[in-house]
C-alpha cells in the first residue's frame, strides 16, 4: 500500500457534521490541545475521514483532539484530546 503523507482534510470538513450538534459554527472556534497545549482554529485541524467517522488531529503534535461518529440514531463526540474550546459568540 502506498501511504500518502497528505491523507487528511482540514477542520472545515467538520462544519456540516458538527452543525448537527451545535447551534454555532464550531470550525471558527479556537481549541487547545491536551497534549502540546497549542491553540488553533478547529478549521485548521487535520481531519481523517477514512476511519468510521471523523478523527481530528492537532496540526502541531498530531494528538487526536476530536472524534465524531454518526450512527443512524445517534452522534458520538469524543473531545478528550481538547482541553478547551473558545467559541466566538454574538454579545449575549
Amino acid at each position: 500500500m502506498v501511504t500518502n503523507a497528505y491523507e487528511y482534510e482540514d477542520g472545515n470538513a467538520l462544519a456540516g457534521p458538527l452543525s448537527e450538534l451545535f447551534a454555532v459554527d464550531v470550525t471558527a472556534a479556537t481549541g487547545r490541545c491536551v497534549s502540546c497545549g497549542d491553540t488553533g482554529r478547529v478549521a485548521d485541524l487535520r481531519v481523517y475521514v477514512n476511519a468510521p467517522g471523523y478523527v481530528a488531529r492537532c496540526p502541531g503534535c498530531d494528538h487526536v483532539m476530536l472524534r465524531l461518529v454518526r450512527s443512524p440514531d445517534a452522534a458520538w463526540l469524543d473531545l478528550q484530546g481538547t482541553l478547551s474550546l473558545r467559541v466566538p459568540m454574538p454579545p449575549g
Partner: protein
Amino acid sequence: MARTALPGRLSPRLEWRVATLADFVDETATARTLLLDVPGWPGHLPGQHVDVRLTDEDGYSTQRSYSLAAPADGERVELTIQRVEDGEVSPYLADTLAVGDPIELRGPVGGWFLWHPSRTAPVLLVGGGSGIVPLMAMVRARRQARSRAPFRLIYSVRTPMDLIYASELRRSARDDGGLDITTVYTRSAPEAWPRPPGRLGLDDIERFGWPPQFEPTCFVCGPTGFVEHVATTLVHLGHDPRRIRTERFGPTGG
C-alpha cells in the same frame, strides 16, 4: 436581505434540503458547474460550502462537501464539481445528474474560510486546481458589491486546458479594478507564456502576492499538499499565520 450564516451567530439547525439541477456549464473536460435551485435557501457568504448527500436505491448513502462557487443569489446555488476518477460522488454529479434531477444538500456551513464583502483589507487568494472554486465566489462577490478591496489571485493549474472559469477570469482581470490575476502553469504553459512551467514557488508567491507588511488576509485552497506548501511558504515570507486561512481537499474529495 437574505439571512446569512455568520460566525458565532446562532442559526437555525441545518436541515437537508432537496435541490434540483436547473442547468449546468462544462468548464473543462473534467469540471462542470451545477446550477441548482434550492427552495428555502437561507443565503451564504463567499468561501462557505455545502454538504451534498446521495442515496442509492438500496438505501446506501454517502456525502461530500463542496465549496459554493458564487455569491448568494436567491434560491440559486452554484457548485463546480471536479471529477475525481475513482470518486464515489463526483462522477455522478459531473456526468450523470441531469437537468430536473434532485439531490440532497445541507448548508451553508463553515465560518472560518470566508470573505465578507464589507472588508477593505488586502486579500491574497492562492488556488490550486479546483481550489479556485471558493476563491471565485470571493472574486464574484467583490465585483457584485463593487468592492475596491485590493485583491490578488494566484491560480496554479497543470495546463491551459485545466483552467476553470477561464474567460470570466480574463474579463475580471480587465474590468474588475484592483484585482490582479496571475496564472501559474505546472506542466505546460501557453506559447510565449513569460513563466516556464513548474511548481508554484516562493518566488511566485513573493512576486505576485502582497508583502507581509500590507497585512493581507490570505486564502489558500487546493489539494492538501499544495495548501501545506503554500501556507508554509507564506509563513516563511513573514506572513502572520493568523491571517492565513486554508481549505484543503483530501484524498476523498469527490
